[in-house]
Each structure stands twice: as C-alpha cells, then as structure tokens.
C-alpha cells in the first residue's frame, strides 16, 4: 500500500505575534513612550530592540556600547521574563475568548486552531474581526504592534504572523518555498542549518524538494522534523500522538502556596519526573498543558508549545510564567495554589539513547543533577552552588557562585584582557568578606602606603585577624589598584601585595592608601 503523505493537510491556525515583546514589556515597566528607541540587553548583548531603535541601526547581538554609539538616546533596559509572561496574559485572554486551547510558544507568540471559531463567526473574516475587537485598545500592549497570520500548520502560521499575511488554504508550501533556510532556526545555533547551507540548500523550498526517506537517512529525526516544517506539512498535528495518561504528573501543595518562586521550587521534582518518565520511554514533550488549581477551586489551564523538546528547565520556566500571570493578573485566585499538574499533549520520539558501560556520562550526569537537587530541597535553594569563572581584576571578582539550576552565566566576559589582574597561579581560597590583617613594619607600626603607591617601610611582621604577628619571609608588590575613579561611590584606591610568612603560607593582601592604613587579606594561596 502506498501512503500519500500530501493528502493529510495540517489544520489551519491563527498565530498572533507581538514583535519585540521583551522590549515592549521592559518599556511598559519602565514607563517609556512607545516611540522611544529602546533595547533589552542581557550579558552586554542586545537581545531585542524596538522599531525606532532598529531604524537607527541597532541590531540583535550588538554590544551595549556599540548600540549606544549608533543611537545615543537609546534606552537600555534589563530583561524580565516573568514580566513578559505577565503582560502577555491579557492577549492570551483575548485569544481564549475566541477559542479555547490557546497554545503559547513563548510570551509574545501564541496560536489557536481556526476551525471551530470559523464556523461560529461565519468565516475567517469574522474571526479576524472578533480578534481585532478583542485585542484593540488592550492597555497592556501600550501601543505596541500585534500581527496576525493565518496558514495551514503552526510553523507556516508563525511565519505568516511574522509577515502579517493570510495564506489561502493549501497555499502554505508555496508561501514557505522562497523563505531562506535560516527561518527554521533564527538563532543560528542549529548545526543542521549550517550543514544544509554548506550543501547549497538555501531556501525552504529546496529542502522540501528532497525525498523524505533520504532526509531521514542522512539527517536523522531532527532533519525529518525540519523537513516537515519546511514542506508545510505540519510537524506537530493537533490531533497527533496523545501520550497515555500515566505521563501526567501532579504536585499537591499542602498548605497552599501563594508565591510563584515557592511553587516553582516545589515543582522542580515533578518537572524532573515528567521529563525523565517520558525520556525513559524514548519520548520528549513538545506541547505541554499546565493546570494549576487554587485552594478555593479557581483554575488556570494553559498550553505551552516549544520549538524543540521541553527540558526540565523549560518546564519550570513555563510554570513560573503561567503562575506569574495568574497570581498577579485580573483574574487572580482568592487562595493560594494547591495543585499543579503537567499533562503532556504531544510527544515526539527522541534519538535512541544508550547507556555506556559503567553508567556512561549521560546517566551519570542525570543522577548527579538529581542528587544535587535533593540536597537543595533539604537545605534550601541557595545552599548548593556552582562556580562560574567571571571577568574582573580581583581574584574575588573572578569567581561567581550561582545557585545550582540557575544559568551559570558570567556577568562579565572572563576572556577580556582585564589589565591589572594577577597572573597565574590563582589563590585557591578566597575570603568573603575579606579578613582584617596586621601588616607591620620593623617598628611594629602598620605599614603605610603613600599617595603614589609606594611603601616607605617594608613589611616585617604579618598576622591575619588578631593572631600574634610572625615574621615575613618574602613579599612582592605594592601594586596600585585605582578602580572606578570616575564614580565617587564605587571608587577604590588600594595597593595589592603578596606576602609569604615564615611558616611558608602565602597571602594576597590589600592596603588602603592613606595615613591610617587598613590592611585586609583577600585570598590565601593554600
């Protein structure tokens, strides 16, 4: 029997896309005018910018400085993902008023199926009218744009929304044909896209023209997925595999909790169970229904769709986003959250996973991560930390500790040259806060540092804290540090010294440059 793949047309969908949603949210939070050029910056890179900023040449991925140079009046804003979810909630509510089962990809992008409402409103034009009435004048949008697209299949609908187009039924393949191959993954991180580009496949149409079986043989399940998207055959049909009920996980909170972070912390266990249960059956979730119940019986139900597969962190993010919107919105429940339930709506098979001999890295990592999460539940979220190499001149600044499970990102790039930092080897123990020290000269007076960073009398005796001072065997320095002299609050003028005492212990000390010198130990070379 020959199966004709083309006959099963994917369901028609409406996508709603708010461009530059992170900027819109941050701008509303900061109370700025819609026309103000604004950019949201994380880790010193622009992640989103407003239309007016784009007109000045600001682009995603620029450094903050560079963006400010191109547009001096640019408002630089920080990113607040929970606020993004919270502000998007009214838009979701407007969509929900038209049809149930709103699927949110991320704050700023959501979709609904079109079939039911089309019948109810008498044609797609009726749906569009109802939708425009629903979202027009939403105060939360603060004058931001909202684009609507209709097409067959969710990928095509998303692309249509980005261009504000309505694609005729059956027209999705033709619409997608001429789009560049990068459309599949705008972040540009996908190795598949890179490979396709190098193979000379530059449009979705060219990729779609390849035979499906050959794509599977050459590129694996990821390739097939992308191929189905590119050819306008929906990769995630609405009525697709409904996973059995036993993958649903429920968390009962007793007593009820009214803080988002507390719920998210407690939900970590079920999120992990949810992902591992599916993983154990070779499945991964692409669309998730999240239900939360308050102690007085109010309920929130949202569907979250993910472009890839949902990991534990992704699931937790969505728990946080949804509850943030629910607990702070207009329809806020009268009681705390008493139950959270995760229902997988659509699953896809993952690549075959084989454990290595002696429990290879995959299983090992999973096990270790779970043990650390367990210690965290015993001792608190901030008790288990992971070190991150950060940028900075002081050894203390170069180590940043982040709670386990948070993203271990440096605040500043450690790869920058950081002139004035101490060369290797680095001290092994840092003191936080620094401990006071006694650095004394031959006459047992604290060693003085002149305004120009010189030490008229060398250190002869040293002690940490209030110990009895011992003789200094050798020392190096003083190296003046003159940091942030432009800012009176955070300016720092000190000298650094390395001191080795007679017992062979080495310390990194800093001393202030004034007449009553204060010395402190910053780190120990233990």
């Amino acid at each position, binding site marked *: 029997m020959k199966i004709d793949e083309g006959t099963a047309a994917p369901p028609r969908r409406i996508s709603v896309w708010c461009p530059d949603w992170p900027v819109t949210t941050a701008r509303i939070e900061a109370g700025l005018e819609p026309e103000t050029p604004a950019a949201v910056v994380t880790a010193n890179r622009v992640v989103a910018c407003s239309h007016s900023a784009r007109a000045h040449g600001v682009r995603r991925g620029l450094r903050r400085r560079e963006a400010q140079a191109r547009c001096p009046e640019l408002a630089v804003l920080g990113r607040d993902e929970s606020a993004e979810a919270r502000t998007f909630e009214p838009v979701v509510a407007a969509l929900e008023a038209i049809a149930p089962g709103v699927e949110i990809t991320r704050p700023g992008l959501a979709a609904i199926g079109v079939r039911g409402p089309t019948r109810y409103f008498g044609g797609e034009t009726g749906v569009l009218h109802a939708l425009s009435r629903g979202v027009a004048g939403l105060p939360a949008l603060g004058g931001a744009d909202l684009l609507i697209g209709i097409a067959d299949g969710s990928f095509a609908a998303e692309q249509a929304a980005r261009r504000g187009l309505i694609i005729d039924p059956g027209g999705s393949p033709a619409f997608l044909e001429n789009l560049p191959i990068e459309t599949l993954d705008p972040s540009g991180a996908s190795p598949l896209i890179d490979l396709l580009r190098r193979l000379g496949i530059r449009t979705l149409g060219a990729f779609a023209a390849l035979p499906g079986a050959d794509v599977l043989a050459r590129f694996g399940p990821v390739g097939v997925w992308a191929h189905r998207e590119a050819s306008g055959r929906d990769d995630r049909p609405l009525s697709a595999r409904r996973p059995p009920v036993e993958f649903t996980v429920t968390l009962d909170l007793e007593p009820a909790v009214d803080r988002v972070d507390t719920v998210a912390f407690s939900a970590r266990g079920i999120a992990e169970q949810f992902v591992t249960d599916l993983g154990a059956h070779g499945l991964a979730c692409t669309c998730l229904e999240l239900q939360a119940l308050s102690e007085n019986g109010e309920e929130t139900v949202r569907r979250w769709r993910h472009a890839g597969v949902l990991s534990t962190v992704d699931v937790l993010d969505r728990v946080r986003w949804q509850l943030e919107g629910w607990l702070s919105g207009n329809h806020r429940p009268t009681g705390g959250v008493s139950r959270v339930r995760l229902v997988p709506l659509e699953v896809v098979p993952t690549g075959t996973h084989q454990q290595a001999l002696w429990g290879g890295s995959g299983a090992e990592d999973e096990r270790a991560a*779970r043990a650390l999460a367990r210690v965290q539940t015993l001792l608190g979220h901030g*008790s288990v930390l992971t070190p991150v190499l950060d940028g900075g001149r002081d050894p203390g600044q170069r180590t940043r*500790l982040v709670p386990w499970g948070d993203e271990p990102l440096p605040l500043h790039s450690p790869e920058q040259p950081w002139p004035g930092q101490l060369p290797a080897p680095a001290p*092994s123990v840092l003191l936080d806060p620094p401990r006071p020290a006694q650095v004394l000269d031959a006459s047992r007076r604290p060693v003085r540092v002149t305004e120009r960073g010189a030490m008229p009398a060398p250190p002869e005796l040293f002690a940490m804290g209030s110990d009895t001072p011992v003789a200094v065997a050798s020392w190096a320095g003083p190296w003046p540090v003159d940091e942030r002299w432009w800012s009176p609050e955070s300016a720092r003028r000190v000298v650094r010294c390395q001191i080795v005492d007679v017992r062979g212990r080495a310390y990194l000390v800093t001393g202030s440059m004034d007449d009553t010198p204060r010395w402190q130990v910053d780190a120990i070379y*233990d």
Partner: protein
Amino acid sequence: MLDVAIRKPDGSTAVDWQHVGVRTAPPLPVAPALHTILPDGLRRGSTVSVAGSMSLLLALLGAASADGAWAALVGFPRISAEAAREYGIDLARLALVPDPGLVQGGWTTAVGALLDAVDIVAARPPRGRGVVPGDVRRLAARARSKDAVLMPYVLDPAGWPGADVRLQAVGGEWTGIGAGTGRLRARRVEVTAGGRGPAARSRSASLWLPAPGGGIDEATPLAPVIDLAG
C-alpha cells in the same frame, strides 16, 4: 569474589581482578604528577583523607573531573573558580555546598546524599564539633556501596579515623618572590601518603603545587653535575 583474569591471546594478563579488587568499576584517574603517591589513581569506594593544602585537594579532583567525573565540595567557604580550573576541574561538574550546617545534622545528610550520585565528595568536617565516629563509619560504608570517593579535608592527618589513604602536604617553599620583588610563581611541597591495606607502605613525592602558571607538576631535583673531562 570473582577470581578471573582477562588474558590476551599470547597468554599475558590484560586485566587481573585480583589486582583491581572486588570493585569492577575502574578507578578515577589522577594527574600524572601524583602517580608516584597514588599509582592506581583514586579507587572507587575508598576514603582518602587530605590534610595540609587546599591546592592538593583541588589537584586530586582535577584529572577525574576533566575525565567526566562529578565532584562536590561540602563545607568549604569559598574556593576560587580560577584555581579550580587551573587544576583541570570542569566547573560545570563541580557543586559547592558551602554551609550545610544550618540545619541540624545537615553536614552528614548532605555528604550522604551527595555520595549517592557524585563521584568524589570532598568534605570539611564542621568546625568545633567534628564528626561522631558512627557517622564516620556510615559515610565510609555509603561511599563503598555507591562506588564514590569520600575525601575528608582535615587539619590533622589522623583526624579522620579509618581512611584508606591519608595524604598530607608538608612544607611550602615559594619561588619567584623576593623582598619586594617578583611575584608568587610556584610552590614546592612534599606530599606523603600512608594508610591501610595496599596503601600501608608510605610514599612521598616532591611536587610543584601550584606549578608555574598554575596546575600541578612533578618537582625534579636539579640535574647532577657530570664531569665531562673524566
């Protein structure tokens, strides 16, 4: 006990379980400079006590962590990520539990929970109270049954009774630094190892800890002067 050796076609022994011991999991690797004192690496299931130097502890974790093992440090206030990386530790697989003592019995619980899944758990006993002998035995048994390495960091080499291997760093002679000149470049330390069973014979090595530029290296004595004329 399994009494089989895997042999090569020519009859020579490839893997001798007698030598490896009952544990079938291979030991965790250590840096080449530490081979003189730990010829077989870190045996899984053992307790290795470390005294005298935090750098020695980090150096012991380095090669295993780079090889994919997980490590946790319990009760150490603040270690430097930079130094850890210089010793080869992969920071993504390093977890710190700086203050487990906030909850009653938190230290033992945390170390026990971590031994379940983390390959090397380095732990500094809480100040003052110490660890009761019962907990010492229980944690050693947990490490043995979970094939993990328990690495207590103690002030006194005899501070952890029942350790399979005791390592101690003594002395510390810094080079590169003078009276107001130069900077700290490297430190030469003597590391001695003793213990029970196969580790009973005491071994020692002279090491650069840290070596110039960071990390660990063997300190070779200066080459003897050879009389070319004779």
